[in-house]
């Protein structure tokens, strides 16, 4: 026997789980992780896991975490791209689990892309 409160708790927990079951909305953030052989070898799976965990924990229901293939900058893997509607795509490089969490907190939640982690910054510095 479940109380009304328990049923409501199930509703809320499950809502987060089924949230990405629908064709992506144009207003959503899309975080895309490069998951070709190069990315996976560099640890992209941990990055992906960290991203999905963050999105769930922070209840970010306007964010879709997805994966893609190799975009050709294998030495910078794991590569993560953030698509924000109406803005230029931001490409992050060498994204480990820690960087992934920072990107979610700073870029997605507060609208401040982290310049030091971007591809353009990495290319300029090296």
């Amino acid at each position, binding site marked *: *026997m*479940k*109380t*009304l409160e328990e*049923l409501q708790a*199930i*509703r809320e*927990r*499950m*809502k*987060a*789980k*089924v949230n*990405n*079951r*629908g*064709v*992506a909305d144009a207003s959503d953030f899309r975080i*895309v*992780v490069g*998951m*070709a052989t190069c990315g*996976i070898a560099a640890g992209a799976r941990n990055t*992906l*896991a960290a*991203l*999905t*965990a963050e*999105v*769930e924990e922070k209840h970010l229901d306007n964010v*879709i*975490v*997805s*994966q*893609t*293939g190799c975009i050709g900058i294998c030495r910078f893997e794991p590569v993560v791209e953030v698509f924000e509607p109406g803005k230029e795509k931001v490409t992050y490089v060498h994204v480990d689990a820690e960087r992934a969490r920072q990107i979610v907190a700073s870029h997605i939640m507060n609208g401040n892309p982290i310049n030091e982690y971007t591809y353009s910054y990495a290319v300029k510095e090296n």
Partner: protein
Amino acid sequence: MLERAHILVCGGTGCTSGNSKKIYDEFTKLLKENNLDKEVKLIMTGCFGLCARGPIVVVYPDGAFYQHVKVEDVQEIVLEHILKGRIVERLLSKEREADGSVKPFNETPFYKSQHRLVLRNCGVINPENIDEYLAYDGYLAYQKVVTEMTPQEVIDVIKASGLRGRGGGGFPTGMKWQFAHNSVADQKYVVCNADEGDPGAFMDRSLLEGDPHSVIEAMMIAGYAIGATKGYIYVRAEYPIAVNRLQIAIQQALDYGILGSNAMGLGHEFNIELRLGAGAFVCGEETALLNSAEGKRGEPRQRPPFPAVKGLFGKPTLINNVETYGNITAIILNGAEWFTQLGTEKSKGTKVFALGGKITNTGLVEIPMGMTLRTIIEEIGGGIPNGKKFKAAQTGGPSGGCIPASLIDTPIDYDNLIAIGSMMGSGGLIVMDEDTCMVDIAKFFLEFTVDESCGKCTPCRIGNKRLYEMLDKITQGKGTMEDLDKMEKLCYYIKENSLCGLGQTAPNPVLSTLRYFRDEYVAHVRDKKCPAGVCKALVSYEIIADKCVGCGLCKRGCPVNAITGEIRQPHVIDPDKCIKCGACIAACRKNAIKK
């Protein structure tokens, strides 16, 4: 942990017969092998509607809509799409945007014009998991009616919504609830009519398979509104998947205390039992259904008294169709006014149709009332295959009638369909092209009703049999013009004098084909010709000498050696030997044989 992708495999009857269970198992195996089972969610869901292209697999969040998926394709989907994020394009729809990219599936013509209200959870949730139903506001409507509304207020909302019975007759649902509410008795019942018997109709089955909890919740609301504590779902045993999912759903609701002596802890009792029917068409008629649910022979009862006064076990009973119940929770949660914005003046909301026959996108569609038949057939249905011409559509199955091509722009609602001599019926929509003989179609449906008549009343038992014999005579080329008039008279006699809906509507296919395609009947009777070339007795095969090159293919293809001729000389068919099987036409490469 949140899953980053969801793989939805269709578990409706259509895709199951296309082996979707094996596809599901293969996904389970391969996801595990690739260590993806923790980060990707795999579920078996209800019908997506596009049965013609099944088995269907949808992957979110990309919204990749894979069609005609085979077990061998699963590996490619897992390794390419799930692991590397490269969508397997060859399995997607061929419908493309102007720039060549794949259209999102909800933008394709099949889905774009639909309005999925009753089917909102079908193909979205896992029907065997009550938690997923809860995620889509499940059982909130019941909570709302019990905590915030009186039974009369619930009935008033249903009345104000203008919802009409989706089983075929179109009786206002709110009125039905009011009658059952007004009856005074120590015990009342709520019954769900899931005895879907029309050939070619499968919307009730799909709803039960895809979203069983929405029907259970609606029955609970009905129980609260009329003061009933017990519900019965009468479902045919030929729907094993629906029965199984209903049993799972009822058990889960019991485990959560949603059903039971103190439903959801809100102080009302409600329990549901299943009753399996053996599949007699007449049991879809409500009084016959009640008899059958009581364990008696499925024969209709005299009305009045109506079930709302004296129904199951002699007690006041509310009986509604599956799809009618499918509307209830949405109306309660969104309000009557929201519902009335959909549809036409007298027919509110949507209607689910099972689209079948000579149509490209065979499947399940839900449209707002008032959409024209043209939109359904040409846009959603994708038109008639093989470049053939649309001839007519049959709605309402063996109780309905046909809509000829000249009326293709009629907006579909209850009253318009009745005005043109058809009926909404439960929602079968069978499309016919120029190769269909209307006399043969009328004969087909009548043969079905003759077979399914329970035999209790004479007009139906004997009248329909005689009507069938006349039709048979006509298709044999032995009919007379007097027969046509006699048939019409007999039709009206049967309609006016039969006991129940089965007999009262059985002659409809004959009447409506007589009304719109009388010339075809006349061709059968007077010219002894079947214009569509269907009625075997009236067809003769002939080789056109000018076109025949004497290759001998037809001769070799003929199973009864009816074709003779020398090589490189025109061949001939012996009409006495010919059995009109059509094998010669299939074999001929020069189109030299006509019928």
